[in-house]
């Protein structure tokens, strides 16, 4: 009964939205140049953000799971803080650190001529900031579920730390990495607050789909509805696929590892 109310609570706003979508205008809106640019920018930046999150997030997750060091829980809290922070606060924090007058941003500009605000790179930075924790948490829990004796055995057989990570740990946690990357990607795709605060809003450069949707609400609410539905459809498809294809496999693989050979197949 309570579960049913919970499901309704999530389903009703969706129904409300779908109910009002001007389906006859869908094609017009989607084929307009500005929407095309926003969609293209959103997909590009969010894919790069997911990739960056993976490159830095997997080693971070491994460190949090396997390396005992003082202050580990503080580092973990710090690395996942942006999950609970309002995204706008994240944007403001980025602004004061990597902005033109920011603590570090002024040197980026002075020494390397790099400016992040108002650039597509700034969009990626904002997206990575909010998306990476999802990957870190997912990967860390996969590593924790992995039998540490596997890695230890490989180490005693003479494998270097890097070799063991690359050949034993990483293949075994692949489902967790993929699930984390997909979650991070979908979070980056929907990023709004940090982006509009830190990167601004310029069509073709920093105006992603969520920003275009928000601005459309000011002038053309019907177009905003169409854009919302596109974002919902993409995210829903991702979550649905994620559940069945990756999370379903991650659990048996992590709970009962049968050696690297069995896991990698």
């Amino acid at each position: 009964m309570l579960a049913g109310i919970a499901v309704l609570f999530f389903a009703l706003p969706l129904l409300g939205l779908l109910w009002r979508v001007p389906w006859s205008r869908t094609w017009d809106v989607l084929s307009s140049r500005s929407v095309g640019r926003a969609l293209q920018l959103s997909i590009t930046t969010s894919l790069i953000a997911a990739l960056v999150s993976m490159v830095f997030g997997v080693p971070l997750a491994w460190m949090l799971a396997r390396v005992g060091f003082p202050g580990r829980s503080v580092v973990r809290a710090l690395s996942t803080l942006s999950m609970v922070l309002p995204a706008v606060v994240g944007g403001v924090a980025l602004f004061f650190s990597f902005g033109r007058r920011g603590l570090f941003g002024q040197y980026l500009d002075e020494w390397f001529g790099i400016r992040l605000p108002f650039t597509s790179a700034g969009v990626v930075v904002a997206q990575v900031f909010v998306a990476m924790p999802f990957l870190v948490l997912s990967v860390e829990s996969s590593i924790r579920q992995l039998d540490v004796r596997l890695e230890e055995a490989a180490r005693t057989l003479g494998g270097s730390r890097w070799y063991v990570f690359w050949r034993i740990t990483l293949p075994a946690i692949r489902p967790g990495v993929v699930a984390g990357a997909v979650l991070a990607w979908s979070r980056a795709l929907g990023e709004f607050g940090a982006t509009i605060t830190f990167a601004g809003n310029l069509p073709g450069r920093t105006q992603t789909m969520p920003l275009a949707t928000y601005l459309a609400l000011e002038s053309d609410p019907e177009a905003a509805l169409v854009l919302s539905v596109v974002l919902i459809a993409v995210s829903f498809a991702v979550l649905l696929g994620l559940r069945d294809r990756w999370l379903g496999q991650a659990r048996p693989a992590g709970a009962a590892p049968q050696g690297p050979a069995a896991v990698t197949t």
Partner: protein
Amino acid sequence: MGLGALALAALLPACSAGRDGTDQVTLDVFAAASLTDALWEIGGAYREAHPEVTLRFNFASSSSLATQVNEGAPADVFVPADADVIDLLDAGITGDPVVVATNRLEIIVESGNPQGIATLADLARPGLDVVLAAPEVPVGAYAREVLARAGVRVSPRSLESNVKAVVTKVVLGEADAGIVYSTDVLAVGERGTGIPIPSEQNVVAVYSAAVLRDAAHAAQAADFVRFLKSERARAILERYGFGT
């Protein structure tokens, strides 16, 4: 769900008996974000004369306010920054809109004007970071008009979602210049500098107040609109930099 809605309705009474037995009325005033500070003060002044009326303000960009009203948000008085926005209301208004204030545009630059900006034409200077409001919101549309009148082509670095975001980007040094309302420049005080735009290039933003046709308290709403034209309200508006 139905129970929840009822509980909410009980918690948020639009009308309730006051302590002294007179009926308390809550007026919902939807107003342009640029009026925020001035209207809070005017609201305080109005309450002194009408303790039975509680004013509940909703400040946002004029176009989003119109969307909210059309989606059924309860509103009695509507004060957009552009009278054309009133035409966007599905249910319309009662009577004619009353002009309550005017505003002009100004260039805002960092405090002390380090880039030496003097005219609109300077905004086209290469390497200068200019931010404007998006064309979807009134001040963004006005800024475009002003630039077109001056024959200046600007490539903005960002089209912000509201006027305060433009101000913030300039005041914090993220952008070199922006086009905002004169009242916004006045509001930031020492933290920013305003460069006036000559009248022949400038546009006048006209704030009109109207009583909505669906207003729950039409009589009180009309009284509040009349108060906006009073000496007292005008003095407050002028102090915040509006024309009246």
